[in-house]
């Protein structure tokens, strides 16, 4: 049974800023969707199915596409909603991929967005653990301690950073360099949120220390934004684009996602930087894609890194180098826009984070690199294959997609 090739033929973004008070959810998403239709040269009537997702807590609306999707061209279409936290955008891409690869739906519109300014972001993040926190208060945990444990404004990524830095030898200077690299790249990306051309690691090192070891400059913003993508069969794609970007494979892998356990129980997730399941997801994705040596075959990577240390950590967990090698690879310049294996040429999540959308935007950015449509942020080297990654949960959900300029070899 031959594999049905799945290819991206259109990408659309809305404007991404911290507060889009000029539009409601339906209008924000329509910006991205209409740009996507235009980019693909397609209309709503050409769409066979729709996949959509966002994080339900942030806007305070349950299943927002119920009142919004008509505005996006989903009238009477098959539609499925997929929401998996920070990995939502990636999970939506997976859903769209499977819809086409199943052979049942030729052309699928994928939508991922977040409009955090509509709600209360802190509350939205807290509700990840509200139930367990309530259980722990009841059993005699000091609320002040729990708040302090939670990493304050930064969140529990501080624990992951501390552990990663120990394991890899990554220093705070490396974190500063990651931020500088990403924010400079973002300055070349018209739809990114935080553009900081000329930002230096020294500038980043001067930003306020939020909670050890993470500084303000190492953390992503909260963004309102939407992203849309159209995928279709390989056959149809060639009629629409000279150089479509094929999604060769998708894989996800999940670990227990609780640093503090559920309701006070101990968690077997002792090292938040281990991310063994990310390595598994990458392995499965590369296997399906027919990639035997990702270090040599992958030309560009968009790991999901709302925190600076994660760009290096996930570079390793995506099997692009050995454990502990990423800081040196950063130092070598290889991750730069003109390097051997550019990382986050879009600016990454650390520059733009509309949470529900950001994992899809890793995929669309790799696609644009492959299609040669990344404008000023197009990397210097020739791009044939790329890997896009999403991360979320409390600490432990990962999604991976491998893209290429040629379809999967059977």
């Amino acid at each position: 049974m031959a594999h049905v090739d799945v290819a991206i033929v259109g990408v659309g973004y809305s404007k991404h800023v911290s507060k889009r008070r000029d539009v409601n959810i339906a209008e924000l998403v329509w910006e991205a969707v209409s740009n996507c239709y235009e980019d693909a040269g397609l209309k709503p009537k050409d769409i066979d199915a729709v996949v959509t997702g966002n994080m339900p807590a942030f806007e305070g609306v349950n299943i927002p596409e119920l009142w919004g999707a008509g505005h996006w061209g989903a009238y009477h279409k098959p539609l499925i909603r997929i929401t998996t936290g920070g990995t939502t955008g990636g999970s939506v891409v997976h859903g769209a991929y499977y819809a086409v690869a199943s052979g049942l739906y030729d052309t699928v519109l994928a939508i991922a967005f977040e409009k955090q300014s509509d709600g209360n972001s802190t509350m939205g993040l807290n509700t990840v653990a509200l139930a367990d926190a309530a259980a722990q208060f009841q059993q005699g945990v000091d609320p002040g301690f729990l708040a302090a444990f939670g990493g304050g404004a930064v969140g529990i990524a501080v624990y992951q950073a501390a552990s990663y830095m120990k394991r890899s030898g990554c220093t705070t200077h490396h974190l500063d360099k990651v931020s500088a690299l990403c924010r400079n790249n973002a300055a070349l990306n018209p739809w990114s949120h935080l553009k900081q051309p000329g930002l230096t690691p020294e500038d980043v090192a001067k930003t306020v220390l939020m909670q050890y070891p993470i500084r303000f400059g190492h953390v992503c913003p909260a963004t309102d934004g939407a992203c849309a993508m159209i995928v279709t069969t390989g056959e149809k794609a060639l009629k629409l684009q000279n150089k479509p970007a094929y999604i060769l494979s998708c894989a996800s892998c999940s670990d227990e996602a609780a640093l503090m356990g559920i309701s006070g129980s101990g968690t077997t997730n002792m090292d938040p930087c281990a991310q063994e399941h990310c390595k598994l997801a990458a392995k499965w994705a590369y296997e399906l894609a027919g990639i035997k040596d990702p270090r040599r075959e992958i030309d560009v990577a968009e790991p999901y890194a709302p925190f600076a240390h994660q760009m290096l950590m996930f570079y390793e967990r995506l099997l692009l180098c050995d454990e502990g090698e990423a800081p040196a690879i950063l130092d070598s310049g290889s991750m730069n826009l003109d390097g051997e294996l550019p990382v986050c040429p879009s600016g990454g999540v650390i520059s733009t984070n509309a949470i529900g959308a950001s994992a899809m935007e890793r995929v669309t950015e790799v696609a644009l690199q492959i299609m040669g449509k990344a404008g000023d942020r197009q990397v210097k080297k020739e791009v044939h294959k790329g890997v896009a990654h999403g991360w979320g949960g409390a600490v432990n959900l990962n999604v991976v997609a491998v893209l290429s300029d040629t379809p999967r070899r059977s």
Partner: protein
Amino acid sequence: MRREVAIISYAQTPYEPDANASREMQVLRVAKAALAAAGLKQEDRYTVVTANNDYCDGRTISNMRLVEPAAAWMKNESKAEMDGAYAALYGLLRILSGDHDIALIIGESQASVYARWLPGIMMMDPTFDRQRWLLNEVSAAALQARAYMNAFGVSEEQVAGVAAKNLDNAALNPLAGNKLAGADAAKVLGSRKLYEPISEMMVAQYCDGACAMVIAAGELAEKAEKPVWIRGVGFAHDSYLTERSLEEMGSLKLAAEKAYAMAGISDPASQVDLAEVHENFAHEELMAYEALGFCGRGEGGAFFDSGATRRDGKLPVNTSGGAIGANVACATGLARIIEAAMQIRGEAGDHQVAKAKTAVATGQTGPCAQESVVFVLGGE
């Protein structure tokens, strides 16, 4: 469909208003049972798709802490934030792609944990309808019931009759939480009025529960003793509540058309042996008869009166008791698929129907079934 995919095994918890159980343990119980019944171990390769809703579970990323109980640790796992039948749909798509051969599907929620009216209200348009606090799941359903009944002369007695049928059917389903042996229309009409014309016993009351199902293609399906083949599937999204005709179940009609086309069914009334329909309200079942092509437009009431959909009729509907017998948000549609599969395998015990070769199962999401999914199942 490019692969033959079958339901291999399933498991359901009893459905109770308050199961006095944790969400995690409920999921663990059905996940283990379904895997064991399929002869699978956790080391085997399978993908997991769960259905759950953040507003019901009171947890953002509601699938996250279910990873372990769902036997999904270190597995390729995802979610549909809709009725459980959509998780089955997504699992099916994963298998059809060829990248997976086996999928474990799980749906759950616990009405005893959340305020039953809240998730429905939060689905309404936040800029207008939510501000006025007039629309919730029940009041919206009442508006639809009135529109439908007036359009086609359907009576409250007929609607009540459906509720009574399902409550009486539920009495033969050991898992159903809402049962009333010998229920009749009068009893239903005598129950407390909520929003005219809907009275309490016409509502599929939410309760606690979880269910799981293993579907597969390839070796596991070929070796299975009693595979229940998925012959067709269809799903559709209709316009928002106040932007469509409420006289018919538009999304269900569209979904059914696609599912029937895939399954090669041109005359459902004669080719379908039984149906398990997701009816959040009794009148929805009458509307479903029409949308599913069991009778003509506007003939749902008459079709019910004919007795065809009773458990001894020629096209039994909801012999399990349907959602009125047990309604678990994010699981009800999946339970309908399971119940239909049980019928085909002859495992429905006291509520087994005589002829069960081809069955239809439906699931819905959104107020007044704004979104529907239909499965057509058949045995060998």
